[in-house]
């Protein structure tokens, strides 16, 4: 059994590496067309991402929210729910954590931190329940609703820090600082890498455990593989969808809370450069598995981390990284498909044997 797992991991990694290489080639082409030296760029990318302890720490820092949003998306996808609303859960979870952090300051010691994290997860989960309920009970397509609700969440939290919770005298829209004991400890100063990374790792373990060892995990993935069959077997769609969205939203909220309590120590309007959407890319790259998500998030973290330096040093816009990411997604899904098409051709052939 362990051998099987190792072989599967090996294949996954190979696949991801191959996809990455293809994307890098395309990125190189784009850079050359824009008159930049691609090889120098990639050298900088690698050294920035993995060149030293601090560099690795920064990569992991960038990867942390992606791990969580990736897991959030993956959990929902496995249950057959296309939750594209992780960004919304992230924002609201972030604000909730911040609020607890600067309001409930009388809470002693670590309990403030825990309360803030919990608040982030709970609010993120609650937000995801809205489209979840609409889908489960009314059959409303979750793709459109979750995307729309993202915008609502972003504007709403922006309102919150521009009006009721605005800090007078500050130019940017942001909330008050959270109390000292609500801050997540730094792991490797001067890097901003903090314990939210540990949380993310725990989440990876938890998700792997969920899907392989628990009845709930079994239920979610079997339902995702064939909802009709699941209903005939006695599973309740409403229950499955809501549970999936709850977990998904909680992870998204936790991602936001991690950023607030670990990096910024306050809620800043529009702080997310699209962590939620990137979570989708990570989930896809990682094929919705816990370990795949971890790998994919670190990969994207490396790209981002390195990308920021690229921008500084070689005047290559950070968005190149986005282009690379999109390319990666396209090729990942194409790869699925090619293998699947081959399999399908074989099985249809045997089906028609009459």
């Amino acid at each position, binding site marked *: 059994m362990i051998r099987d797992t190792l072989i599967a991991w090996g294949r996954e990694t190979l696949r991801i590496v191959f996809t990455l290489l293809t994307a890098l080639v395309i990125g190189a082409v784009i850079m050359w067309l824009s008159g930049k030296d691609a090889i120098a760029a990639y050298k900088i990318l690698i050294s920035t991402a993995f060149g030293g302890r601090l560099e690795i720490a920064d990569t992991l820092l960038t990867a942390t929210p992606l791990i969580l949003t990736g897991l959030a998306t993956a959990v929902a996808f496995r249950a057959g729910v296309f939750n594209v609303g992780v960004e919304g859960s992230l924002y609201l979870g972030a604000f909730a954590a911040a609020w607890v952090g600067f309001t409930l300051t009388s809470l002693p010691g670590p309990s403030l931190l825990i309360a803030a994290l919990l608040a982030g997860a709970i609010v993120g989960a609650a937000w995801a329940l809205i489209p979840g309920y609409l889908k489960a009970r009314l059959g409303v397509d979750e793709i459109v609703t979750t995307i729309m609700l993202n915008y609502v969440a972003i504007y709403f939290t922006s309102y919150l820090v521009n009006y009721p919770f605005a800090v007078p005298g500050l130019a940017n829209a942001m909330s008050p600082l959270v109390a000292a004991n609500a801050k997540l400890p730094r792991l490797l100063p001067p890097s901003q890498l903090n314990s939210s990374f540990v949380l993310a790792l725990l989440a990876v373990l938890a998700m792997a455990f969920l899907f392989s060892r628990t009845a709930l995990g079994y239920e979610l993935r079997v339902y995702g593989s064939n909802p009709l069959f699941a209903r005939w077997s*006695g599973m309740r769609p409403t229950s499955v969808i809501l549970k999936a969205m709850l977990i998904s939203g909680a992870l998204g909220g936790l991602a936001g809370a991690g950023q607030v309590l670990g990096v910024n120590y306050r809620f800043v309007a529009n702080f997310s450069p699209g962590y939620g959407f990137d979570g989708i890319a990570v989930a896809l790259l990682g094929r919705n598995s816990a370990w795949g998500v971890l790998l994919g998030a670190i990969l994207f973290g490396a790209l981002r981390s390195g990308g920021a330096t690229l921008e500084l040093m070689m005047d290559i816009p950070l968005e190149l990284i986005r282009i690379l990411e999109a390319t990666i997604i396209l090729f990942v899904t194409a790869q699925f498909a090619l293998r699947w098409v081959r399999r399908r051709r074989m099985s249809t052939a045997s089906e028609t044997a009459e």
Partner: protein
Amino acid sequence: MPYLEMRGISKQFPGVLANDHIDFSVEQGEIHALVGENGAGKTTLMRILYGMETADEGAIILRGKEMRIPNPQVAISLGIGMVHQEFQLLPSLTVAENIVLNREPRRGIFLDRTAAVQAIENLSTRFGLGVEPTVRVANLSVGEQQRVEILKLVYRHAELLILDEPTAVLTPQETRELFAIMRRLSSEGHTVIFITHKLGEVLEISSRVTVLRRGRVTGVLETARTNAVELAQLMVGHEILTTQKEAAPAISDETVLRVEKLQAEDDRGLMAVNELSFEVRHGEILGIAGVEGNGQRELVEVLVGLRPAVSGRIYLDGTDISYEAVRQRREQGLAVIPANRSLEGLSLPCTITENLISTRYHQPPCSHRGLLNLPAISSFAQELMVRFDIRAESPRLPTRVLSGGNLQRVVVARELAAVPRVLIAAHPTRGLDVSATQAVHRELLKLSSEGVSILLVSADLEEIINLSDRILVLYRGMVVGEVSASQANQEELGMLMAGRGWTAGDKK
């Protein structure tokens, strides 16, 4: 010179030699029956003729000239048309739009509706295929839809028509109408190949018959000079062994499943189950006979808990389960073999083990306090594989690699792992070959002798008559006849299924 000759046709699929050097010929204007059991190779042979498959070996000679038929478009251009078992109609489009699709009379890029309607009306009258061109196909009966399919072929100037199991979905009355149409076609010079496994029909309508068994031709006969017994022997190779039920074993008076005035709607909001009432006793097999589309599917869904009833009640062992969820009903002892194995009964991408525990994963021994007990699950799966003869290398394989018969064994294994109170078996042997079918029949009979109540829903009258203790005939959602199996015969049941009202079925 025969109109069509297929010489030495062979076709291999992974693991199966579907056609083994088959020689098949048809004369112009004849109605030629192609018979054999499920899996004999009839459909494959016709798919090759229609260009949907390519033969590995052999030749097709049409009107004396050898032809290559790489795809259906070429077949159609050669005058060959096929009506499949599953209709290829577009429900939201009208009859006219369906018939002229891709051969539309046009005015520029616009569809010339008047010309289309006119052409269809002409053809309709010529062949006795009365359909309204402007009606939407969704609103037609099955028999009418089939006529639209035939019109499609005729509109495209098909001279050779292949009908694949056309009577499977028709009432006896509609079958008679179809036969009239076939005779019309034949008299106008068209040739008809008619695939079936119903020997009575072969004898009634065809002029010649070719029998296939296991991919080979076992006989080519003139219908007038043969009979059902001979044909059956050629089809099966020996006397048909029907799993006959022995004299009624212990059927107690205890009612296990009771349905009272059940009413339910179908997906379109029309009444599908209409004040249905019946009971099934301990150890009894109650057969529900009826042409598909008369409420059987909705009835099963309501009993299982997947479709809400509009009114009425369901009692299991005296408890009212009318509002209970699927899981609760299963926990009370309801089990079901769904009609659609691969969509409802299994999740193909999941492993055999995962499919086997789908109804009990949340309970001990499979799980305890939310955690799966993997060793227990594994041994449970192994045990079931042995007990139900599921043939696969390992229970960790995804079910999609299994054959039809094996897939059904997985479903049966799961549902019967614990002895249920009531088993609903919906078309349990559909698509299975002879040995797999017999295995399922044996299992059902064994269960009923152990006291399990079985509700058998099937379109196969032979199966129903052989297995059931009592038979209810369903027509338009109502019970129109109740017959005890010992006194049942196909004719009478057929009439009831067509809605010809009650006969004093109990007395003979």
